[in-house]
């Protein structure tokens, strides 16, 4: 994770276009100014950032399913549950499944596990729009490379 750049996941571990699922991983940094305020003497990964991590995981799945033709923007969150605390230094396993790809929107179900234990989960809705400009798309492709997004699978999916 690079919290200062709002990069909430480190790597795409698996992308299955047939099953419409994705798995990613992330490690919560051991130090961040965020933990100075959340909370002094008792640092916790903010729940809103765990939700963003699920949204980013889901977003890459949607980008894959739509073959990099649409950009998913976070639109709605349902049934979000933050089941246990996440501390600095913990490793997260994230997964998402596409529930529905509609016209101009998509809905996913996502969760995070720590040491195999379900830590949080939610249903997330995205608006799908064309990439706003070529630079935006280029930046997403650059991020895809950093996250080891398997571009090759899009051609065969």
């Amino acid at each position, binding site marked *: 994770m690079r919290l200062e750049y709002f990069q909430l996941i480190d790597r795409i571990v698996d992308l299955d276009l047939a099953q419409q699922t994705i798995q990613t991983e992330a490690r919560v940094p051991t130090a961040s100014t965020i933990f100075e305020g959340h909370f002094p003497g008792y640092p916790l990964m903010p729940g809103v950032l765990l939700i963003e991590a699920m949204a980013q995981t889901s977003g890459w799945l949607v980008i894959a399913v739509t073959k990099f033709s649409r950009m998913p923007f976070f*639109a*709605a969150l349902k049934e979000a549950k933050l089941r246990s605390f996440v501390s600095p230094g913990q490793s997260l396993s994230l997964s998402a499944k596409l529930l*529905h*790809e*509609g*016209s*101009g*929107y998509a*809905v996913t179900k996502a969760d995070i596990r720590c040491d195999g234990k379900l830590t949080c989960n939610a249903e997330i*809705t995205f*608006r799908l729009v064309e990439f706003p400009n070529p630079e935006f798309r280029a930046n997403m492709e650059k991020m895809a490379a950093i996250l080891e997004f398997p571009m090759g699978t899009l051609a065969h999916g």
Partner: protein
Amino acid sequence: MPSTFDTVANIISETCDIPRDTIKAESHAINDLGIDSLDFLDIAFAIDKAFGIKMPLEQWTQEVNDGKATTEQYFQLNNLCTRIDELVAAKGA
């Protein structure tokens, strides 16, 4: 088996907390019922699921934006239900 309109009206009522008896066949989802685009995503998801279809919302929106169609053609409920019936029929064809 409920009619297409009854199914759609029930979805709108439950999704947007609008009293069921205020939802009429001639109601316009946006102008009369005040449904915004985000709530309409929830409605679209429920309709797509209920009927096993994919409403072409992007195409409809584009047609409205280009002046090739009016919002009434797609978002007045009786017209919306006709579109849904057409999509269901096309799926089974």
